């Protein structure tokens, strides 16, 4: 194959990665933006989405599309409920103290991951895509499902954006983000808003995982990479800035696809982790953002 088609393939793969990453990272960014909580367990909600998708798919007989649609609706909901409960029973009681919440979300990470290990087991399991027709480009065939993932992510992101900018919920969120005490004074139930945001963040990660699990398999340790990548995206995109997050996700997702064609994945990850560290050290507001941690 020439370099051209090779790059096209890498770009397509990059676009899929970027789409999934954008959804996951927006969830993390939203939680940080509104609640100032760094959710280290975010990757586990992603994993939970994938594992639940496998479970729903195995529950429903017949065409794989039935199980998939069921998973797409139910898996994010379950993840969201678990997250909202974690917020209510743990984070709220810590008064959202930044260091204590990180320690608690590390605990949460292990609780979710290990519970899945105990119930779902250590195996990686595939989920069948709802449809799998291939589009034949002049150089190679490409799965239509992957195009669907890109499209679905765009639709969902637009949905989140509309929710944040055009609805009353978005107004409430932005008010809570600016000043939680003021929001309280105006009769906004900040407790409920926080639980909802934490649930929404986890739900978005789970949704991203449901979309990606027919391409990637479900495994109890799969949460690590999305967490790291989301961190990178959120920090580079500017903390709490949704638009910056999406731009950074596209940038990182695309380049990750292309870089991993040329470098070993381990080296790529080393570069990525050091990038996060050095951005935080030398440009704590992120490359595009205005606020620092």
């Amino acid at each position, binding site marked *: 194959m020439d370099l051209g088609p090779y790059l096209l393939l890498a770009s397509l793969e990059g676009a899929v990665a970027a789409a999934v990453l954008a959804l996951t990272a927006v969830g993390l960014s939203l939680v940080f933006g509104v609640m100032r909580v760094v959710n280290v367990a975010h990757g586990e909600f992603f994993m939970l989405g994938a594992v639940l998708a496998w479970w729903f798919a195995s529950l429903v007989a017949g065409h794989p599309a039935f199980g998939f649609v069921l998973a797409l609706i139910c898996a994010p909901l379950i993840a969201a409920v678990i997250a909202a409960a974690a917020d209510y029973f743990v984070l709220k009681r810590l008064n959202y103290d930044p260091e204590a919440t990180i320690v*608690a979300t590390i605990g949460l990470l292990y609780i979710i991951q290990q519970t899945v290990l105990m119930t779902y087991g250590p195996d990686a399991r595939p989920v069948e895509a709802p449809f799998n027709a291939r589009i034949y480009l002049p150089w190679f065939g490409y799965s239509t499902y992957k195009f669907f993932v890109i499209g679905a992510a765009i639709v969902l992101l637009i949905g989140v954006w509309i929710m944040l900018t055009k609805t009353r919920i978005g107004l409430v969120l932005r008010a809570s983000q600016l000043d939680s005490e003021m929001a309280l004074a105006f009769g906004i139930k900040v407790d409920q808003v926080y639980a909802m945001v934490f649930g929404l963040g986890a739900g978005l990660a789970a949704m991203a995982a449901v979309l990606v699990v027919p391409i990637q398999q479900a495994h109890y340790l799969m949460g690590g990479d999305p967490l790291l990548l989301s961190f990178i995206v959120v920090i580079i995109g500017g903390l709490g800035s949704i638009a910056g997050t999406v731009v950074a996700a596209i940038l990182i997702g695309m380049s990750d696809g292309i870089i991993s064609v040329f470098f070993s994945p*381990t080296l790529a990850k080393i570069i990525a982790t050091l990038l996060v560290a050095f951005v935080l050290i030398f440009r704590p507001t992120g490359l595009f953002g205005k606020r620092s941690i």
Partner: protein
Amino acid sequence: MSAAAKSVWLHGGVITLLFALQFVLPAYHHGNLARIMVLAVYAMGYNMLFGYTGLLSLGHALFFAAGMYGLGLTIAFLDFAPSPALLSGIISALIVSAVVGFLALRTTGVAFMIVTLMFAQAGFLTILLFGEYTRGDEGFVIQQPERVLAGIDLTTPGNRYFAALILFSVCLIITARVVQTPFGKVLIAIRENEDRARMLGYDVLRHKLIAVIISGTMSGAAGAAYALLFGYVGASFAAVQYSIFPLLWVLLGGAGTTIGPLVGTIFMFYLIDLSSGLTSAYMLIAGVTLVLLTLFARQGLVGELRKRALPWLP
């Protein structure tokens, strides 16, 4: 009795107790306690930074691994004898902690946590990247002939216990001493109110950097000793989990207490030991403990004891 005298009695008592235990413990627990003492050194190193200076690092596995690989790789590839290898491990940790401290201390709070986490992760991945030499996750074994330190064969349980006890005692005494010195008091002042400490004329950054270096070097000494005493070097000791462990031990035992790290390590070690007999998901215990500690007992066991009954505990 003065604070200094109480400190001597307390720490002397702990060391004496650990010395005496080797004669009464059954073989299994005897072996465990040797391991626990080395890990408690790691926890004490962590405590110096987290408990006394108030800096929460999520990347101490990097220092532990620097000690471990500083010893292991020089034995494996440069044919170092155990004592220079041990020194090499400790110096590696010292250098790594100085560099990490220098960079990471430009940040504070949550950013400091994430930066240390990322550095440690980069270190872990680097070990995997050079798998040809480090043997990656699989790791490598240090053979018996390379584990004879100054004529003492560290592969026998008795010698191993004794070596662990000596390392532990030295580090306990260093910790107990440091926190009594003016330098240690400044660290505590920084933990309590950084701005105030600065406006009393103390160079906060310099104190923090020295704290990172003491903490990292002690952690590295534990890593090197672990490799030497138990004969194994592997990447899993550099993974995130090994950054979380000392946090867990110190939180459980009591941050900012001299004997808390030992107490926390003993409890957590046996909690995980017991549960790993029941399930492979033993890290569940770690997760639940972390959440419960942050919710209900931020002071940890020794911290609660100090608060309720023994306010003099150092």
